[in-house]
């Protein structure tokens, strides 16, 4: 059954879209990520114009992160104070991202930028996570043999604590300058808006490795930030880029919600390092898929990118 998408301006199979939403939702639920980094490329691949794919993915990400954030909220597993500071940066980054997005769209560079960014971002994050999770797996085996966990000495004062404007985040057990936190929020908001991703797979490692925040509050806090930045992204994409397709968004969300429930259930059976290794491999796979598009001689050197119809 085909359904006509009024903003994307093309008919697509309803079941294909539902299935795609469900598949992305499954992976999102499994790994606790937004899944935007899979959804946007998928949509572009099936023929949705890149601006519509990026802008509409934010609807899917907003809905799935609302679901997630509520769960963590009830478990008291999020730091709303830290989240609020991240959001300040996130909103700023999102606004900058939408402006950049439209400027690049006008100049006709948007497709190239999306492809290049996906390759570099996914490959680097994927490699880092891959190496880290393999390391952690070896480490835990060694510990099992030795029987004692090595105690890591915490550094006296981290680099981010030496900056001015300190703030205390009780739940995250962190006192630090707000500058790096706002900065992180800005970068994530910017990247997320331009690429149509939530950025959870960037925020979570950043909070864990840079700020040494306890893992149990990281995911909830990151989801809280994603909810707000994606809602801002929806608003700005719909008003400035005019590329949000509400019908496409609705179908994807319905599929995603169902898929996510199965994903969450499957995810509970996985161990931490296995989980990170699988996610790393998935991210790497998407990165490699994008890399194939630009590495090596293309079968067809010509490509049509923009079609702007005069109304």
């Amino acid at each position, binding site marked *: *059954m*085909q*359904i*006509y998408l*009024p*903003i994307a*301006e*093309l*008919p697509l199979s309803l079941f294909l879209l539902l299935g795609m939403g469900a598949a992305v939702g499954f992976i999102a639920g499994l790994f606790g990520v937004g899944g935007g980094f899979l959804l946007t490329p998928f949509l572009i691949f099936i*023929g949705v114009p890149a601006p519509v794919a990026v802008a509409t993915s934010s*609807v*899917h990400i*907003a*809905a*799935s*992160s*609302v*679901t997630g954030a*509520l*769960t963590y909220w*009830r*478990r008291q597993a999020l730091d709303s104070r830290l989240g609020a500071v991240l959001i300040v940066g996130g909103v700023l980054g999102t606004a900058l991202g939408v402006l950049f997005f439209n400027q690049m769209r006008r100049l*006709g560079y948007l497709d*190239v930028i999306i492809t*290049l960014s996906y390759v570099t971002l996914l490959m680097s994050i994927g490699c880092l996570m891959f190496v880290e999770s393999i390391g952690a797996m070896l480490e835990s085996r060694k510990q099992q043999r030795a029987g004692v966990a090595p105690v890591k000495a915490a550094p006296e004062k981290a680099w981010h604590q030496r900056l001015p404007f300190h703030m205390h985040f009780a739940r995250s057990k962190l006192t630090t300058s707000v500058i790096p936190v706002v900065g992180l929020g800005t970068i994530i908001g910017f990247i997320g808006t331009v690429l149509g991703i939530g950025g959870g797979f960037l925020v979570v490692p950043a909070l864990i490795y840079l700020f040494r925040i306890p893992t149990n509050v990281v995911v909830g806090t990151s989801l809280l930030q994603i909810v707000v930045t*994606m*809602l801002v992204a*929806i*608003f*700005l*994409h*719909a*008003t400035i880029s*005019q590329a*949000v397709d*509400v*019908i496409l*968004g*609705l179908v994807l*969300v*319905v599929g995603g*919600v169902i898929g*996510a*429930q199965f994903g969450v259930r499957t995810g509970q059976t996985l161990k931490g390092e296995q989980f990170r290794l699988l996610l790393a491999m998935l991210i790497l796979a998407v990165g490699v898929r994008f890399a194939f598009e*630009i*590495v*090596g*001689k*293309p079968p067809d*050197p*010509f*490509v*049509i*990118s*923009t*079609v*702007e*119809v*005069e*109304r």
Partner: protein
Amino acid sequence: MKRLSALLLMLAGLAAQPTRAQELVLTLSTREVAITSTYTGADVTAFGFIERDVRSVPRTEPFEVIATVQGPVGDIVVHRKGQLGPIWLTAARERFARIPTYFAVLSARPVSEIVSHENAQRLKLSLTDYLPPIDTLPPDEITAQSEFRQALLRLRAEEGALHIDPKAVTMVRPNLFTVKVNVPGKAPVGLYVINISVVAEGIVLRTAQAGFVVRKVGFDAAVADAAKNRAPLYALITALIAVLLGWFANFAFRRD
């Protein structure tokens, strides 16, 4: 030799004169293609009648019909990838401004068998006839330009936005015909113009035009209109839908 060419000119003049005697009457199966939620493209049929009167020159060969369909105009950019270290990126681009974003050439047999190259150009039977001529460019640019134009034609045909169908015209009677126009689901909304030419013995006797509109109606029109003209409201509703569905999912599937 000179007398021969003069004679030919006179004959051409004579041949051109009676063309006005042929009348071409056109009508379309619909003037409006409505896009609804289940829209996947549409068929529009043009019916034509070639009227002859006493002034018409009797012809030994039957009438033939060539139709072109032009969708709304727009800008199309063709990129050519070039090598930059290990990766291939756009090295050159060509913007084709204001050309039909949907174009079809419909006939009963290949148009090259019906009309000469010059007549085909005059009737604008190729998408490239809508582009500025390239003969005036320096020779090296001509090569690059024609490569881009070939790519444009090839890629638009692959996308279904350029459709050449030598089986779309049916001559029901020697002077009565139908033209089947297929509007693909991906074709943009807007005005579509059908140009129909009647040809006999390679001479274009008559050309007539008819048009139809492809537009969104009902719910889809309301959504597209809201997205364009009431963007803040549309944005708020979309954001609200996302929040509500997310909240509902959490509520419906909660296990703690």
